[in-house]
Every structure is written in C-alpha cells, then in structure tokens.
C-alpha cells in the first residue's frame, strides 16, 4: 500500500529516533555482533535453510525421519546456546518492554492497540 509522504516521514523519524536511542542500541549492537560473526551467522542461516527444507518436504507429503528431526533439534540447540546469539536474544528480551512503551504512545492517540493492527503475525483477525 502506498503511504503519503507525511506518514512515511513520521515513520522514518520514529525509526531514526529508535536507532539513536541508547536502550535500543544495546540490542542493535548485539545483533550486529551476530551478523559479523561468520560462525554465529552461519549457524543461523543453516537453521533457516534446514527448516525451510523440512517444511517443503513435509508439504510435498514426505514423512520426515527421526534423523531429520534430531538433526534439526541439534542445530536449533547449537543456535540457542551460541553465546553471541544468546546475548542478542537476551538484549531483545530486555528492550521489549521499552518497545511496548513506544508503541503505547501511538496506541494512546489511536485509541486502538497499534501492535494488533500492525503486526503481520498477529492481526485483529486471529
């Protein structure tokens, strides 16, 4: 959907303010560490590829073997315990209440919860 220049500017101003915010920068830095670490980034990419591969095979009617499931769970565990990834996830968990407060400011003016309207993974229709 095409947004008006005014809305685009207001959205980008908020994004810019968030990027400059010290609390949010803690998470952004932790995220950058993962992106710049070949081992951590590689593990995450492997997990995504494996997940997509398993889903595709399952959708094509294949019954996944125990080895497939074990391989996925093992890789998922490695991702979860990787120190840089764990640090990033912890930083994200820490900033979530702050992000909620930021969204609350929008919701207060709208009179309706902004995140319910805007979160593609959880809309008002569910």
């Amino acid at each position: 959907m095409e947004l008006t220049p005014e809305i685009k500017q207001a959205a980008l101003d908020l994004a810019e303010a968030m990027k400059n915010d010290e609390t949010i920068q803690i998470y952004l830095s932790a995220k950058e560490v993962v992106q710049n670490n070949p081992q951590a980034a590689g593990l995450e990419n492997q997990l995504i590829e494996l997940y997509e591969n398993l889903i595709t095979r399952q959708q094509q009617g294949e019954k996944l073997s125990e080895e497939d499931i074990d391989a996925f769970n093992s890789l998922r565990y490695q991702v979860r315990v990787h120190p840089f990834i764990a640090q990033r996830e912890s930083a994200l968990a820490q900033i979530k209440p702050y992000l909620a407060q930021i969204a609350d400011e929008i919701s207060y003016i709208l009179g309706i919860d902004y995140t319910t309207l805007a979160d593609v993974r959880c809309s008002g229709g569910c």
Partner: protein
Amino acid sequence: MDGSFEQSFAAEERVSNVFQASRALGEALVETPVYQNFLSALKAINNDPEIQRIATEMRSHQNALQMGINAPDHQAELARLQAELEALPIVQEYRQSENEALAFFRAVDDLISESIGFAFAHNAHRSSCSCGA
C-alpha cells in the same frame, strides 16, 4: 556543568525524542482517511442492534459449549449465526475497512521495521496473541 548531569540530560532528550516521534506518528496516523473509515465502521457495528442480537445469541451457545451441553447442536447454531453475521452488509463494510486498515498499518510498520532492522510491532506486542503468534 557537571558531566554526569549533561549525560543524564542528553539521555533524557533522546528518550523523549523516541516518545515524541511515536506520538507524532500516532497523530499523523489518526488523521488518515483509512483509519477514520475503520473507526466509523467499527462504531457502526458496535451500535448495530441486529449485531448485538446475534452476538448475544452466540454468547449463549458459546457458554453452553463451555459447559459441554449438547455440543454438536450448539456448534451448528454458532456456525449458522457466524454466517448470518458475516452476510450483513454492515459487517461486510467493516471487514473491507478492517482489511484496508490492516494493510495500511502493516505498510507503516514494514517501513519502520526495515529502517531499524527488526520487526517493530511484533516485538512491541505486550502479550502473545490468541492465534499463538
């Protein structure tokens, strides 16, 4: 001037900028025709007596289902009432404006999320959605 005071003042300024920016976005969003149409449609369905009647009937069947009374009959009646509800022109108008509002807010959030590098609304959600997302 004390350095720690300056640092603290600067931090407060940044925080207020984030909140100022979110309020400014809220003020821009609330004025848009797509949001105003959605609010009007929402108000209309909330004040419609026919919808209130169907909703009341639906609640009684849901209560019966929760108590485990004659489940197939109540389920069938619930499905019939839901279809009756969805067929009302006022509900169809509401669905149309809801879909437009959702597409609009998702486009706004996509823009913010792309710029900051993570999904804003999804991570700002206070609680898990009933859909499990």
